[in-house]
């Protein structure tokens, strides 16, 4: 006996004809202000139950029926509404051609934990590019992956995975002594320290930014890295970066390239 047939016996509502609907979703609502127990939507193939409107016995029979259908495989999942919406959004945004190209490139090359963080970062970037807030999602990724997650997020937003990091892999892969472990070691350093880029945040003071820039330039020179990128979003961060640029331009052995588009700035320091 299907769920609808059972429900006709369980709940005292007229479900005549409803058994012909091939429903896809059962929605359990919590709307105490509404009296209606059940709403059938033939167009969306959804049945909505307003849980507080059901009698105790009806609630019990409904949940028992749903559990039986889950156990028999008729129902594949129970999902909280906002999580279901998020999953649907991920299914639309993450497999875009641009994202999939990056995932396909890195999936056999980096550690599984880094790939998971990269996938999450690509999804966050897709939302960021629509102009929506990503602060909570970023916090979730940083909570899960720590400093690695933070750096992967920043590097992803700044386009390093389709740019510089990919180029490094292609350079390394030319070497006779290349192994995937060597690239994974490089990738781990990148994600732990984000050595070639500084992402200026609102919490970073001018003094801290200046110290970070000078420290990284010195370190890069020691390791033969020829550039440092400074990224900033927002008026205050851009102002701080311009001040540093003035200092850097006074040094004769550095070349500074500024790329600013309204509220986004990238400064490349070459040495």
């Amino acid at each position, binding site marked *: 006996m299907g769920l609808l047939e059972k429900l006709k016996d369980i709940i005292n509502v007229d479900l005549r004809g409803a058994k012909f609907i*091939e*429903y*896809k*979703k*059962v*929605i*359990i*609502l*919590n709307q105490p202000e509404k009296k209606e127990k059940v709403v059938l939507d033939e167009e969306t193939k959804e049945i909505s139950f307003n*849980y507080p409107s059901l009698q105790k016995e009806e*609630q019990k029979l409904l*949940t028992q029926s*749903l*559990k039986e*259908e*889950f156990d028999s*495989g*008729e*129902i*594949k*999942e*129970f*999902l*909280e*509404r*906002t*999580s*279901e919406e*998020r*999953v649907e959004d*991920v*299914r639309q945004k*993450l*497999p875009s051609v641009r994202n999939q190209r990056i995932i396909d490139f890195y999936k056999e090359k980096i550690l599984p934990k880094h790939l*998971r*963080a990269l*996938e*999450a970062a690509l*999804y*966050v970037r897709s939302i960021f590019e629509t102009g929506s807030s990503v602060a909570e*999602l970023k916090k*979730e*990724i940083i*909570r*899960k992956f720590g400093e690695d997650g933070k750096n992967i997020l920043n590097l992803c937003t700044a386009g390093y995975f389709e740019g510089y990091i990919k180029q490094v892999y292609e350079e390394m892969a030319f070497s006779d002594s290349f192994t995937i472990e060597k690239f994974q070691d490089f990738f781990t350093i990148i994600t732990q320290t984000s050595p070639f880029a500084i992402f200026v945040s609102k919490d970073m003071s001018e003094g801290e930014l200046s110290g970070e820039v000078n420290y990284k330039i010195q370190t890069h020179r020691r390791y033969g890295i020829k550039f440092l990128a400074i990224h900033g979003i927002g008026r205050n961060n851009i102002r701080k970066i311009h001040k540093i640029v003035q200092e850097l331009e006074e040094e004769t052995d550095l070349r500074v390239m500024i790329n600013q588009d309204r509220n986004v700035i990238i400064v490349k320091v070459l040495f």
Partner: protein
Amino acid sequence: MKKMERAVIFDKSLSREVLSIFDKTTDDEDFIVEAANPSQKVLTSEGEEILLEEFAGVTKGSELFIKSDITSLIELSKRKR
């Protein structure tokens, strides 16, 4: 003919009711636990404990409990492709 698989979608405020369907409840710290053995915390497939606030649902694979953080939901979306 392929059997249609259905989903149950629930309001967050009904999380406790959904947990009780699966014989689960929460402990003093709001972690999801076995109703019959409250010292036994329910774990995700990655071995993580789940707070009621983080509960995203249950999916087949006997009973897999899902957290609502973005990486868990990405994994779930891949299984649905």
